[in-house]
C-alpha cells in the first residue's frame, strides 16, 4: 500500500491535464462540433474516449491509479456530455455476450457517439422485481425474426434514442428469470410509440414506450434465447458503479461551496455559518471515503476479479451524496428556493437547485432502489440468506 504516485503516474497526470487543457471548447465554437472533435482527439490518445473499455476492444487499459487520476482530473475539467446507455451499459454486454458480427456492427457507432441508445427494462409490473417483465417477443415460424408486443416505462431518453436494448419475454412457463431474451432494435419504426412522462423537476427525460408488432430480426438477439437475464444482471453491476457519480459530486461540491460563499450572512457568508459548514464537511468526508472505495473496486476489478456486490456500496453512498449536495443547494438558496418557471429570481443558482433536488430523488430509485440494494448487500456480501428480493 502506497499513495505515492510513480514517475509514470505523474507523467500520466500531466498528460491528462494537458489534454483537457488543449481540448477545451473554444470561444464561439459550436457545442456539437467540439463534442465530436473532443471524442476523436481522445480516441487518438489511445482509447481515452472509452476509458472503461478493455484493451482488446480499444480501451486504454489503464491501471487503477490511472483511472483514479482520470476521474480526479475530469472533476476539474469540462468534458462533453455523454449518456451512459451506449458506452457504459450496452457495450460491456456486447463485449461479453455479443457475437463478433454484433460487436463489429454496433461498437464503432457507440464509440463514436453516433447512435443514441436507450434501456428498455422496466415495466409497470416490473420495477425492483425486474424479472417479472411481460413484454412479449414471439419467434416467427421460420425462426428469422421476433414480433415484440408490450410496454416499457421510465425509459430515459427514449424520445431521443435511435436504438433500444430491450428485455423481452420469450417463455413464461418456468421461473421468471428464465425465458427472458435480450434484443436490440431501432426506435424509429412503425409500431413504436413514445409518450413523455413529466417528473417532479418539471422536465421530460423519461417515457413510456409501447410496442405493437415490432419485428426484430434474430441477428439482433444477444446470446441465446431465454438467457437475457444473465446478461442483464452483469450489466446492472456496471450501471450501478457508474451511477455513483463521484467525480460529478466533487465538481458539485466545489460549486456548492462557491455558491454558499456568494450568500451574504451578517459580516460573512453562508460558508461561515457553523451548521452549514459542518454539513458540507460531513459530505466531503463521505466523498473522500467513497473515492477510495471506488479505487479499491477498480483495483480488484483490474486484478481480474469480477465486479462484485461491493459495487452496490458505491451506488448507495454515491447517490446519497448527490442528494445531500442537492439539498444543500436548496438550503443555500434560502427564501428563493421555491422560485420556479422560466425566469431567474434572486440568487442565480436558486431555481436550478430546487429542480435538481427534486430530480435527485430518483437517484435512489433507479438502477436498483436503495432498499433493494441493501438487500443485495445483506444477501450477497453479509451472507444473510433470507432477503426479501430474489
Amino acid at each position, binding site marked *: 500500500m502506497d499513495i505515492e504516485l510513480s514517475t509514470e503516474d505523474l507523467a500520466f497526470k500531466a498528460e491528462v491535464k494537458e489534454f483537457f487543457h488543449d481540448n477545451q471548447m473554444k470561444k464561439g465554437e459550436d457545442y456539437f462540433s467540439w463534442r465530436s472533435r473532443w471524442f476523436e482527439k481522445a480516441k487518438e490518445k489511445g482509447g481515452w474516449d472509452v476509458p472503461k473499455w478493455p484493451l482488446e476492444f480499444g480501451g486504454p487499459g489503464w491501471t487503477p491509479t490511472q483511472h483514479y487520476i482520470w476521474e480526479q482530473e475530469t472533476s476539474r475539467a469540462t468534458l462533453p456530455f455523454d449518456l451512459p446507455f451506449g458506452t457504459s451499459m450496452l457495450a460491456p454486454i456486447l463485449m461479453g455476450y455479443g457475437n463478433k458480427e454484433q460487436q463489429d456492427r454496433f461498437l464503432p457507432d457507440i464509440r463514436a457517439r453516433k447512435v443514441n441508445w436507450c434501456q428498455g427494462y422496466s415495466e409497470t409490473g416490473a420495477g425492483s422485481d425486474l424479472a417479472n417483465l411481460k413484454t412479449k417477443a414471439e419467434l416467427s415460424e421460420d425462426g428469422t425474426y421476433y414480433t415484440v408486443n408490450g410496454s416499457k416505462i421510465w425509459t430515459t431518453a427514449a424520445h431521443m434514442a435511435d436504438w433500444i436494448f430491450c428485455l423481452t419475454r420469450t417463455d413464461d412457463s418456468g421461473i421468471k428469470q428464465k425465458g427472458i431474451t435480450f434484443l436490440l432494435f431501432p426506435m424509429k419504426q412503425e409500431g413504436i410509440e413514445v409518450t413523455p412522462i413529466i417528473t*417532479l423537476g418539471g422536465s421530460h427525460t423519461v417515457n413510456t414506450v409501447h410496442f405493437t408488432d415490432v419485428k426484430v430480426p434474430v441477428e439482433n438477439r444477444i446470446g441465446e434465447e431465454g438467457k437475457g437475464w444473465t446478461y442483464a444482471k452483469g450489466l446492472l453491476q456496471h450501471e450501478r458503479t457508474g451511477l455513483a457519480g463521484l467525480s460529478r459530486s466533487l465538481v458539485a461540491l466545489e460549486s456548492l461551496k462557491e455558491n454558499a460563499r456568494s450568500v451574504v450572512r451578517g459580516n460573512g457568508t453562508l460558508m461561515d455559518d457553523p451548521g452549514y459548514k459542518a454539513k458540507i464537511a460531513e459530505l466531503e468526508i463521505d466523498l473522500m471515503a467513497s473515492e477510495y472505495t471506488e479505487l479499491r473496486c477498480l483495483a480488484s476489478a483490474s486484478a481480474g476479479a469480477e465486479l462484485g456486490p461491493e459495487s452496490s456500496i458505491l451506488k448507495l453512498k454515491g447517490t446519497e451524496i448527490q442528494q445531500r449536495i442537492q439539498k444543500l443547494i436548496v438550503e443555500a438558496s434560502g427564501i428563493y428556493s421555491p422560485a420556479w418557471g422560466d425566469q431567474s429570481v*434572486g440568487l442565480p443558482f436558486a431555481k436550478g437547485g430546487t429542480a435538481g433536488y427534486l430530480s435527485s430523488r430518483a437517484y435512489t430509485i433507479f438502477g436498483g432502489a436503495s*432498499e433493494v440494494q441493501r438487500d443485495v448487500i445483506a444477501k450477497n456480501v453479509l451472507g444473510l440468506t433470507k432477503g426479501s428480493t430474489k
Partner: protein
Amino acid sequence: MNFELSDEQRMIQQNVERFVEDNYDLNTRVALSSKSPGFSTEYWQSMAELGWLGLPFEEEDGGFGGNQIDVLVVMEQFGRGLVLEPYLASIVMGGGALKRGGSDALKSEMLPGVIEGTLQLAFAYAEMQSRFDLDDVMTSARREDENFILNGQKSMVQNAETADQIVVTARTSGGQIGQQGITLFLIAADAEGLTRDNFPTVDGLRASEITLENVSVGAERILGKVDQGFNILQSVANDAMLALGAEAVGAMEVLYKDTVDYTQQREQFDHPLSEFQVLQHRMVDMFMEYEQCKSLLYRATMETIQDPEAAQRTIHALMHLIGKSGLFIGENAVQLHGGMGMTEELRIGHYFKRLLAIDATFGNADYHLQKFTTFS
C-alpha cells in the same frame, strides 16, 4: 389541559374538510394553478360566505373573534387539500398586520372587504439579503411632510399579484439590521412607483419581486407606530408560522397515508410492498414524525394564545421539526412509491413540493434550530 376542539371548531373542521374533498382533486388544483390568478375566485367567495375569512378577526371589526386554534383547524384541512386560495397571505398575514396595527379608520375602511373576500392583501417582509431574518430591512422610508417616500425591493411576496393592498416593511431609522426603526406601511398595489414581477413557485402558488421607486405613502397608512413595527411584524410572522405548521401537518398526513395505501396495493416479488419490513419501519417513522409535528403544533399554538412572548422559543422548535420532518416524510413518500413517486401524475409529489416551499418561507429547519439555541 384539554385537546378537544369546541363544537364550533369541530363544525368548521368538518365543513372545511368536506369543502376540500368536494372541490380539490389534483386535476382541479393543477388547472387552477396553471392560469391567472392561480386560484379560484369562486372558492374564495365561498370561503368568505362560509365565514372562514372572518375567523381570526374581532367581532367589532366584523369578524368572528376566533384565535390561532380556529386558524389551525382551517389550515390543517387546507394542507390536506393543498388549497391554493390566499388564506395565509390575505387573512393571516395581511389581515393580521392590519388588525394589530391599523388605525380604526383604516380598519373600518379595509377589514370588511378582507372578510368578505372582495379585498385582498399581501405581506412583503423579505428582501434579497435578509434571508430569513425579519429584522434585516434595507427598504427605506424617508419622511417628506405628511408622507413617506419608499425605495427598495421586496422578495418572494406571496399573493402580491392579486393583492389590492400590500403591507410592506421599511426602515425609517437605524442601520440595515435591527428591530428598532422598522415601520409597516399599507400600500395600494397600484401605487405609482410600485412594480411587481410575478412568477410561479415550485408548489403551484405564485410570488412576486416588488420594486419600490419613490412610492409616496401617507402617514395615516402606517400600521402601528413609526420605528416600532417590529413587534407587529414578529406577531404576524408567528401566526403565519403556526398556520404554515398546521398546513404542513395536514400535508404530512396525506403523504404518509397515501404511502401506506400504495404499498398495500403495489406488488413486487410476489408480495405487496407493505410486507417488506424495511418499508414498514420507514412508514412507522413517517407516521411518528407526523404525530410529533402535530404535538408540537398544538403546544406552540396553545402557548402562543397563553403568552405569545414566552412561546417564541416553541415556535422555532415547531418550525425546525416541521422543516426536517416534512422533508423526511416527503422524500420517503416519493422513495416508497418508486418511479411513480417521481411523476406529476400522483398527488404526493405536489404535497412534497409544498412542504419544500414551507421550509423556505420563514426559515428552514437549520435556521430555526439556530434561533432556538439563542433562547437559553
